[in-house]
């Protein structure tokens, strides 16, 4: 199958992958609204259904999705002029995608050449053996001072520098999973209502964010509801039944 024909069913778009690309490039769909992870998942599902990997198509897909991710992250990057933020010249973006594909093809052919070349050298082996002792022995007498010891001290000095701490916690895969937080929230819900701060007591920022996401998920599934009196105020969470009514047990504790 050609990547172009990959059928997608996303929140903002349903149709083949190439149409999505075109619409993004023509700015008829906002790249910021496209959940690229869903595209990847659709592709993986497709691979699983087919049960075999078409290397050519896979490479093309990876190059395109990586380029889209990069375009999108460029759009998301803070600190740039607002004009620049919304401006994605469709022509340029299209040329960039094409250039990526051409580059990927170019280096794949070059790789093919290298592999052939290596295979052609098969059989030319080189000798690797220590020098005879008679020749090795002479070397100490021939050795003069050619290196500067200060180089070593400065290298150690560089290694002793503790780099400025860079906060990259948001880039590390989170150690806490949504599933974990769902279990945690459901356990709390069984005991009645609680407030959000209790649910994330002593947790780090990533955990707080994932917990909030889990709250939204449970809300969507109708397992809880919440109230917040004022912005940045306390969030009180209470259990709901599947039909949307607050569970009786809840009223008692609340």
């Amino acid at each position, binding site marked *: 199958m*050609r*990547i*172009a024909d990959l059928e997608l069913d996303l929140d903002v778009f349903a*149709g*083949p992958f*190439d*149409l*999505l*690309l*075109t*619409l993004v*490039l*023509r700015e*008829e769909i906002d790249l910021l609204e496209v959940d690229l992870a869903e595209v990847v998942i659709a592709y993986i599902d497709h691979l699983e259904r087919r049960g075999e990997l078409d*290397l050519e198509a896979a*490479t093309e897909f*990876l*190059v*395109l*999705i*990586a*380029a889209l991710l*990069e375009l999108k992250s460029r759009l998301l990057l803070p600190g740039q002029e607002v004009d620049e933020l919304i401006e994605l010249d469709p022509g340029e973006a*299209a040329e960039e*995608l*094409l250039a*990526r*594909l*051409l*580059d*990927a*093809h*170019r*280096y*794949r*052919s*070059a*790789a*093919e*050449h*290298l*592999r052939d*070349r*290596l*295979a*052609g*050298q*098969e*059989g*030319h*082996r*080189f*000798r*690797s*053996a220590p*020098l*005879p002792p008679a*020749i090795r022995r002479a070397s100490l007498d021939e050795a003069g001072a050619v290196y500067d010891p200060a180089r070593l001290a400065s290298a150690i000095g560089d290694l002793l520098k503790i780099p400025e701490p860079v906060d990259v916690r948001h880039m590390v895969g989170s150690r806490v999973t949504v599933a974990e937080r769902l279990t945690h929230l459901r356990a709390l819900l069984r005991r009645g209502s609680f407030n959000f701060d209790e649910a994330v007591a002593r947790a780090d920022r990533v955990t707080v964010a994932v917990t909030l996401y889990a709250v939204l998920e449970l809300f969507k599934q109708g397992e809880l509801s919440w109230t917040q009196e004022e912005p940045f105020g306390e969030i009180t969470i209470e259990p709901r039944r599947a039909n949307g009514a607050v569970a009786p047990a809840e009223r008692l504790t609340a």
Partner: protein
Amino acid sequence: MSLGLESTVEALLFLSADPVEADALAAATGAELHEVVSALERLREHYEFERRGLVLRELAGGWLLSTHPEAEPAARRLLARPRTPPLTPAQAETLAIVAYLQPVSRPEIARIRGVNAESAAATLLERGLIEESGRSQFGAVLYRTSELFLRLFGLGSLEELPAVSEFDPSPELEAELRERLLQAGEARAAG
């Protein structure tokens, strides 16, 4: 009668693990450079015309002895290990990018390939085909190909690699990609 220049050069090359430049051979033997060059030529011809088990080759900027490829099956049986395991497609792609763009950082390689280059680069490093060459302005380690790369791929220098433009996709392929990327979707968008 003392050992001739051709035989002395043969002995020196036998002992050297790395390619040796003709200049260095001249300095070691006390002979003139042109004498060394013609001794090397005689040695190369001797191996070739007499069908000896050795081959004299100019690789990675110097002269180096290797075995005749026809001895390979016997060598494999004796040494019980392949000369160089073949490269996986990911390793070959990574190596090609390093060879043509050196010095190049891992993020750049990943950008071109569309996927992480971590494990391929680690294997190439471990096999000595690429090596570190300083750091980029952002602190990423830069890579270049090694002397071993030239040697194993039978290259005298990097200049012997075909120009990268030779691997440019054909105009037909480029048109097809463009079509696939842009026009096909346009047609659907219109239709």
